[in-house]
């Protein structure tokens, strides 16, 4: 007994010694969860830079860029994170300087600016219909890029807070 308890941490020994003399006490807490309607993300428009010269730069503003539509439970807060490519499939076609707009209505007028990133950002779905709209823009920079078509996915992940 002495040998065994001497190898245990102090609080464990205290618990062992105190247990026989103490009256049983109970406590409780409530584990809570609310199941709400599943989130849905629709990619409604690609971020299209169009044509660009082999060495150049071109910026597409969020208002004319890629679009996502998120649907879920009305008025619920969500976290939004992005997986953003560093290039469009070739290092000579870099993409960066990401910019975004968010609105609970499907219009950029009055939308809030944000910076898309891998770090989760909090938004709240529309209290009226559970919608959230996101617009993305960026700048593509070419450096001696061969002629061709380049593409890379831009992914958004949404979870309830």
């Amino acid at each position: 007994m002495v040998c065994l308890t001497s190898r245990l941490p102090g609080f464990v020994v205290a618990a062992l010694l105190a247990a026989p003399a103490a009256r049983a006490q109970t406590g409780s807490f409530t584990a809570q969860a609310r199941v709400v309607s599943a989130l849905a993300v629709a990619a409604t428009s690609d971020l299209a830079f169009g044509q660009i010269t082999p060495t150049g730069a071109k910026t597409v503003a969020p208002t004319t860029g890629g679009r996502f539509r998120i649907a879920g439970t009305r008025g619920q807060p969500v976290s939004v994170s992005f997986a953003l490519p560093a290039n469009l499939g070739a290092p000579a076609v870099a993409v960066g300087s990401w910019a975004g707009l968010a609105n609970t209505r499907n219009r950029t007028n009055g939308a809030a600016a944000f910076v898309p990133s891998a770090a989760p950002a909090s938004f709240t779905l529309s209290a009226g219909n559970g919608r959230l709209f996101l617009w993305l823009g960026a700048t593509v920079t070419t450096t001696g890029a061969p002629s061709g078509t380049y593409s890379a996915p831009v992914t958004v992940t949404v979870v309830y807070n």
Partner: protein
Amino acid sequence: MRRSLKLVLALVAVAAGGSSAVQAQGTTGAINATASVVAALSVAGTDLAFGNISPTSFKTVAPAAGGTFTVTGSASAPVSVTFGLPANLGNAAVVIGSWTGLTNTTNSTAGAASITPSASAQSLTLSGTGNLYLWVGATVTTTAAPVAGYTAPVSLTVVYN
């Protein structure tokens, strides 16, 4: 004693495991960021020459007889053109203005479309062979201008849409 020890160790293990963060599965959506790298644009120009003019006078050169720009690039590509237009020819007494222009996908002013050169971007489309021609005219007005030669650059900037 053996049963008590096992119970305590089990509780310790549960407590340690319970420290991990709560995780939720996210809903994702993806768009594509796309760009097409095409042949570089080139712009060549010939001068807008007013010839001789008296110290106080004005002279208009029509686009068909004015300066020209030849743009080459990717076949059938839409482009934006913007002009850098001087307000005078290097001297406030030799004012230039009332800019006019023509544009065509063939090297002929016959059948060319009228444009008003300006610093605001205008959308045009290169021909099936990647050519675009612009002609620029203007009016120069002198007000007691000293006898001399005067000049100022007129620039054209072309980018792919």
